[in-house]
């Protein structure tokens, strides 16, 4: 019973998060300017992090959690570096 409920919920949330990643990817491809592409990438990695957490709930191992934490840390650094680049023209002055 609870296995069925959880299987349905996991499938639905995986579909939702995959659609959200596709939407963010379309914003990266379409975005008229560079800052639109950067915010699309920011959204894409947050959605990927949530998708990995959902996979972790489904598989029952904490390995996916570690990967999600690494993605969260590295995505923050990447977005800040790109915003700095858009602002100044170089990352480290």
């Amino acid at each position, binding site marked *: *019973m*609870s*296995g069925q*409920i*959880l299987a*349905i*919920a*996991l499938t*639905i*949330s*995986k579909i*939702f*998060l995959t*659609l*959200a*990643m596709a*939407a*963010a990817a*379309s*914003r990266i491809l379409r975005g008229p*300017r*560079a*800052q*639109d592409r*950067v*915010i*699309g990438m*920011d*959204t894409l990695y*947050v*959605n990927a*992090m*949530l998708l990995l*957490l*959902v996979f*972790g*709930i*489904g598989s*029952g191992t*904490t390995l996916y*959690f570690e990967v*999600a*934490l690494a993605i*969260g*840390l590295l995505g*923050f650094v990447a*977005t*800040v570096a*790109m*915003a*700095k680049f*858009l*602002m100044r023209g170089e990352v480290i002055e």
Partner: protein
Amino acid sequence: MSTIETLPVWAAVLVAVLLGGGALTTLLGTIGLIRFPTFYQRVHAPTLGTSFGAAFVLVASMLVFSLMEARPVLHELLILAFVTITTPVTLMLLARAALYRDRAEGQELPGWDDDANAGRTRSASSGSPPSAQASTRRAQASSEASS
């Protein structure tokens, strides 16, 4: 350590609601990222996913792992705190960079072209932005058209 099928039914329903709600919130935020017309509106939409979407999914994960291992598993709070702290920083930096780029190229900025702002831009003393002349011209054109 047990598998996910051995969870009680109330926990399964709660986790299902949290997972579906979190994923739906994230999807709605990303649809907003597609559909809003300007960048300054688009920058607000994905925070739906980083605030409530992430919170719902992480609470569901905490619940599942705490019940499966029969002890409180709270390391998802790490991701929650990190995402909550870093998202405003990132988006503030990005919005300031976009504002700087738009000003450097002399584009129309949002909020400068209202009729309410026309007087303020005309009397601005320190380095009037390039859109000030454009909005003043538009205000004159609209007054001529109405008269």
